[in-house]
């Protein structure tokens, strides 16, 4: 339903009853891939966020905080600057970047006494800022036109959507959601306490590696296709938990659906709010997300 409504809304008015040649072209080659991509990106980010939050026992954690997104952004940028023209380079390097960033954060946070959450989050912040500075350095290599495109993309932008990008993120979103849902029962225990989970039979280290790996895959492909759409991984799982409780066996798959709806709606606003111009969808999600984040932070004493 959301998808249908989103298809029909746009800066170019299209009637399904009097379909012109041009209208059909806009519908199937521009709007539809964009909406489908948005749905996959939203689902991916929300699922990654929900799983990371459970793993780190912090409802305010999300891919961006851990540097996963920035790793993916840097990977994409490297592909953009040095390997432009290779279609597969962007998602591949984004995944690699997300994976390396996650691994770096994990190694930094790990200590002889095991892993504690404060160290992990702090390491994430450090990796994020470090990667940001490399991103800034690399963007200086871009010429003005490409820089504008890249800046838009960095904020989270679905306007470059293609069917190829959609298939890629669909595959990643499907695999990621299924694998992470399969770990949801273990995550229910991890969410309460890592030592507890271990005591009650969870292979804590293995679950952690699976979640990190799958979150890197989801975030990497999502960022490669549409840049850093912020706050989705934070807001959506939160709303889902408000609606159905904390059981990750429901939260993880429901986040996929809710995330898809959320990003498609946000992108519809981005496309239509100041039509015929467009906003990056990341600007809309951040515009909704940041105040909500502050509100939640103040209300719930995290």
């Amino acid at each position, binding site marked *: 339903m959301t998808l249908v409504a989103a298809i029909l809304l746009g800066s170019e008015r299209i009637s399904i009853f009097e379909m012109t040649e041009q209208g059909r072209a806009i519908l199937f080659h521009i709007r539809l891939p964009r909406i489908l991509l948005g749905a996959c990106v939203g689902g991916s980010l929300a699922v990654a966020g929900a799983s990371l939050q459970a793993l780190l026992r912090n409802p305010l954690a999300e891919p961006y905080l851990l540097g996963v997104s920035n790793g993916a952004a840097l990977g994409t940028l490297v592909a953009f600057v040095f390997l432009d023209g290779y279609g597969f380079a962007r998602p591949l390097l984004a995944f690699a970047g997300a994976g390396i960033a996650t691994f770096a954060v994990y190694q930094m946070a790990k200590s002889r006494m095991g892993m504690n959450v404060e160290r992990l989050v702090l390491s994430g912040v450090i990796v994020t800022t470090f990667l940001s500075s490399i991103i800034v350095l690399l963007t200086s290599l871009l010429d003005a036109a490409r820089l504008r495109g890249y800046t838009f993309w960095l904020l989270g932008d679905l306007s470059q959507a293609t069917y190829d990008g959609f298939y890629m993120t669909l595959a990643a979103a499907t695999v990621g959601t299924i694998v992470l849902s399969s770990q949801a*029962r273990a995550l229910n225990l991890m969410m309460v306490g890592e030592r507890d989970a271990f005591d*009650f039979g969870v292979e804590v280290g293995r679950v952690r590696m699976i979640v990190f790996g799958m979150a890197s895959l989801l975030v990497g492909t999502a960022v490669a296709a549409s840049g850093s759409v912020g706050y989705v991984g934070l807001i959506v799982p939160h709303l889902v938990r408000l609606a159905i409780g904390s059981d990750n066996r429901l939260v993880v798959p429901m986040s996929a659906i809710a995330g898809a709806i959320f990003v498609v709606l946000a992108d519809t606003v981005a496309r239509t709010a100041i039509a015929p111009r467009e906003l990056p969808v990341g600007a809309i999600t951040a515009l909704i997300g940041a105040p909500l984040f502050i509100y939640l932070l103040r209300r719930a004493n995290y």
Partner: protein
Amino acid sequence: MLKINDITIRYGPCDVLRDISFELHEGEMIALLGPNGAGKTTLIKALNGTLPASGEILLNGTPLFSYSRREIAKRIAVVAQENETKFPVTVLEFVLSGRFASGSVFGWESTEDLELANKALEECDLANFGTRLMNELSGGERQRVVLARAIATDAKILLLDEPTANLDLAHQAMMFRLVRRRCREAGSSAIVITHDLNLASEFADKILLLKQGTIFAAGPPAEVLTEANIREVFGVTTLLDRHPASGSVRVTAVY
């Protein structure tokens, strides 16, 4: 059920536990006593494989390390010092998570799991708490939920790390009675860390008195709880007499 031969654990240069050996028999309840920093919690962590220890730990005759996490969790349940969660987890969900090791990794709980969880809640005097949220409970209530989760596992060995720390008088007794009844009736056994010498004297079959990582004394309460032992380990002077009702050793500190 659990046989410990000469285990030693070191953090850095110093031994936290040194040459600990003892045996936990079926139906037995052992109280682990000792001052702060004596290594009680470390010992509990070693017994379920959380901390690696040199030496030998045999669970039902087989080395502990040859069991998987789930297999250990099916046999040994831990009540650790309490945990807080920032997620809105209900009491029933929390207790059901104790059934993780018995069910499938992916699936949902069975009706049997649900029955065990509800029975455990009832036993811990939490019959109507199922739908309450964990982070809305008081410290003592939460501690009872943590006990209920351990009981819901149906594991034969219970390891309890200061389970009575936040409990009122009535629930302290309930906790110890419950654990002892499980030992007597269900063929379970338990190791309980406590600072309450009188509860240990009243309920435990055997006391291990730890001092600086070694077992200072071990045996039935009446043998271990002596004026001399307590002064040596805790550095306090006490008066000992018999409890007028139960006849077990009663320890009164002299200030």
